[in-house]
């Protein structure tokens, strides 16, 4: 069952730390957002493989926006 990984804050994508196909554990950072001089990881809600990454570095994302999808 696919599951969307959503940004929990508004920020700019600082780093995409995973790629499609990567296996992640629950709590692993999928991407890192930068907001107000802080770097904040967006973590995988559960274990799984990255199916899709929907953002690129430098892009602004809103709170609640899907940044990646887990298999």
């Amino acid at each position, binding site marked *: 069952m696919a599951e969307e990984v959503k940004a*929990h*804050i*508004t*920020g*700019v994508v600082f780093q995409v730390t995973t790629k499609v196909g990567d296996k992640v554990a629950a709590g692993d950072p999928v991407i890192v957002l*930068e*907001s*107000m001089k802080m770097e*904040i990881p967006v973590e995988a809600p559960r274990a799984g493989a990255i199916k899709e990454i929907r953002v690129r570095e430098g892009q*602004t994302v809103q709170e609640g926006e899907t940044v990646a999808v887990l298999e």
Partner: protein
Amino acid sequence: MFRTVLVANRGEIARRVLRACRALGLRTVAVYSEADRDAPHVADADRAVLLGPAPARESYLSIERIVAAAREAAADAVHPGYGFLSENWRFAEACGQAGLTFIGPSPDAIRAMGDKPEARRRMAAAGVPIVPGSAAPVADVASAERVSAEVGYPVILKAAAGGGGIGMAKVSTAAELPGAFAVAARRAQSAFASGELYVERYLQAPRHVEVQVFGDTHGSVVHLHERECSIQRRHQKLVEESPAPNLAPGTKRGLTEAAVAGARAIGYVNAGTLEFLVDADGAFYFLEMNTRLQVEHPVTEEVTRLDLVATQLRVAAGEPLPFAQDKVEQRGAAIEVRIYAEDPARNFLPSPGTITRLSLPYGEGIRLESGVVEGSAVSVHYDPLLFKLIARGTDRAQAIERLAQALDACVVEGVKTTLPLLRTVVAHADFRRGQVHTQMLEQGAFHG
């Protein structure tokens, strides 16, 4: 005195500096990014120059664009504020090369104090006590292990080029060191383009007490007393006050003497702050020197009744300090709190957005330094400080009472802020007794 000052900053500090310039009859130039077109600091200045897009490195952190803006607006001096380029020696140097007066210390002083191991060496040589640790950056994990064993665990790893708590890691045991070292080095590399780390003994629950100093080009160096800044989150201050409560007179004397000796040893000119950690026994250790105006400078202004920004301008113009040490009195008490667009209920996560409602207090002994107005957009691109609230009293109890009432009267809607936490701090028995230390917040003293 120069005629036109460009303020290379935004938010409350840009407004504070612009106000001081106007009071001296100087022409003012603001700079702004595309995200800040409607920001209050832009309207405050006689002229405003667009720097570029919202990201700071294309606007407020671009030396080239700021120097070009100064040329375009025929400015003859530049005030850097705090943050951004204020502690970038290359910027100070670029200003000098462009024929602009940099309102701050020399590039050499900025460079020496910005290199933390170098700062420790220089201060130790001047007789200022420093925390036991590595004299130079440690080359690898093995050297970090050797130094840590010498000074004793727990230790703290710090980025040699760093500041603001970024890249710092506490290490409790030798077993934790290799992992913590790798993480801290990586963070330092990404934040400061240098992964160099040094090791220091970690002090348990110390206080953060700092001393404001001022030097002029005529060889005078004075101190403007101390500030207590222990209440912090992520090593960044939330509450600051002067005088520091419950500071033994001997400790206070030691701190101010050490600060003046340190500043004198490096030929320091303009406003600066030496930060110290003070342990439970009153022993104190140099932490770092900030070679710029501090965020919390208003508490010093309120107790000394001196204008630090106006003094910065005068000193940068070559005038002697307008006050001698024995005329710098510390009267009454003043406390500042920082209202950040952060959610204290979610571990201080940033809370960007639009301020839909803003109602700020006023009254006897209350001072506000705000970078926002109702309708302001709070951008993800910049520091989350919205405004500072400063309360002054004839004594600390009165300052606290005024502050508590003023905090209750603050209304900010549209973004989450640190206001609820600050209200809890100011009501807390330990704060009211002046029993504070740097780890209170993370230890959960202000929960609930």
